């Protein structure tokens, strides 16, 4: 078996633009999911009970539906209901955000409930209000404990953006398929994609591990 990577090299500009789209989609999704998921996680813990039940239902639904289904539904079915067709990139960003926010919300909740009740009791005993106790005592400790899980959300999101290829977002996976189809050298193209994705995602997981190892002591109580 001889490998011929010339197809990858001749299309490098086209593929590189795809890497750009992969990174842009990942960054946008991560930013939106952290904000939305953070808000949902807080509301899930401290919101009124009606809202809490609605959020639990939303979170558990996202945990049970494949991200592919959410993507395909957002891109193909949502326009039929709303009459508005989102461009693939924005459909993917919305669908991934809706999906990943649920996971972020669960991480936020797990972080909050990991702080022992004695901590908030101590805060109340010192005359702090509920808001003060949450903001000054619980969240700072919870945040550090959320870090490793939130860090893994980074690599999960980058990996999930590859599924956006299915709804024709011109990110790296989608462009690899195009080049594979046109060049009749799919093996070389997907081997190159393996190297590229690994080079993007592996450092992210490593940096997250290293940063957490440095900060872990802050989470002890």
């Amino acid at each position: 078996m001889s490998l011929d990577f010339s197809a990858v090299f001749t299309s490098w500009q086209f593929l590189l633009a795809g890497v750009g789209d992969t990174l842009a989609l990942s960054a946008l999704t991560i930013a939106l999911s952290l904000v939305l998921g953070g808000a949902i996680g807080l509301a899930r813990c401290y919101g009124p009970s009606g809202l809490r039940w609605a959020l639990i239902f939303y979170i558990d639904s996202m945990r049970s539906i494949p991200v592919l289904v959410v993507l395909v539904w957002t891109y193909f079915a949502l326009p039929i209901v709303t009459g508005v067709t989102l461009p693939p990139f924005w459909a993917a960003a919305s669908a991934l955000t809706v999906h990943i926010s649920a996971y972020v919300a669960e991480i936020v909740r797990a972080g909050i409930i990991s702080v022992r009740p004695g901590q908030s009791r101590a805060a109340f005993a010192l005359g702090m209000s509920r808001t003060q106790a949450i903001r000054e005592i619980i969240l700072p400790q919870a945040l550090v404990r959320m870090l490793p899980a939130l860090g893994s959300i980074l690599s999960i999101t980058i990996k999930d953006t590859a599924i956006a290829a299915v709804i024709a977002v011109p990110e790296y996976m989608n462009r690899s398929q195009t080049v594979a189809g046109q060049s009749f050298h799919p093996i070389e193209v997907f081997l190159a994609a393996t190297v590229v994705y690994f080079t993007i995602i592996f450092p992210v997981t490593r940096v997250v591990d290293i940063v957490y190892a440095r900060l872990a002591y802050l989470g002890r109580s």
Partner: protein
Amino acid sequence: MNYDWSVVWRNADVLWEGTKVTVFLAVTTMAIAIPGGIALALMRLSRIRTLSIASAVFVELFRNLPLILVIYSAYYILPVATGVRFSPIATAIVALGLNVSAYNGETFRAGIASIRQGQSEAGYALGMSRFRVMIDVILPQAVRRVLPVLASSWVSLFKDTSLVSVISVGDLAFESMRVRSQTFRVLEMLTAMAVIYWMLGYPQAKLVDWINNRYRVSE
């Protein structure tokens, strides 16, 4: 806008076949990936350097690649690399198996590492061999401890099987999307697909929560 939900009932048999394939893929993959994960964990903890490095490379590679890429790569590379023609479903099981084994490998390694050293020391003190200590003392405790994580991996796997639809495996996602393009009832079929996944996945997600509470390790 007029909707015609009868298309879902008319294609119920196709959706049922797809659902069976989805369940089959998840069950078969997990049946491969649990022994696979234990083997990877034992290799990683082995004193033979080559084995330990090989396991680390395998685990890190598949944990840091998008599954959809692994599926496409398996589809194109397996037949050429092995000289054997793989059916789409066999390709799917190989790709999912590689992915989930890598995750399970990390899970089991963490589980084994979480068993206090006194346990294996006590085993050695009783004259047990390294092998017997692992099989009779460490693994039974580790398996119980990793059960919640394995349960989450199961739910992830169940959802991830939908990705094999890209290589034309007739699972629930593939069949729903095929009926969609044949009938042009896009909203109806995609909603039906989402609802079926939800009905299957929701109880599993709740079961995972229950297992998490039941087997929580308290310090």
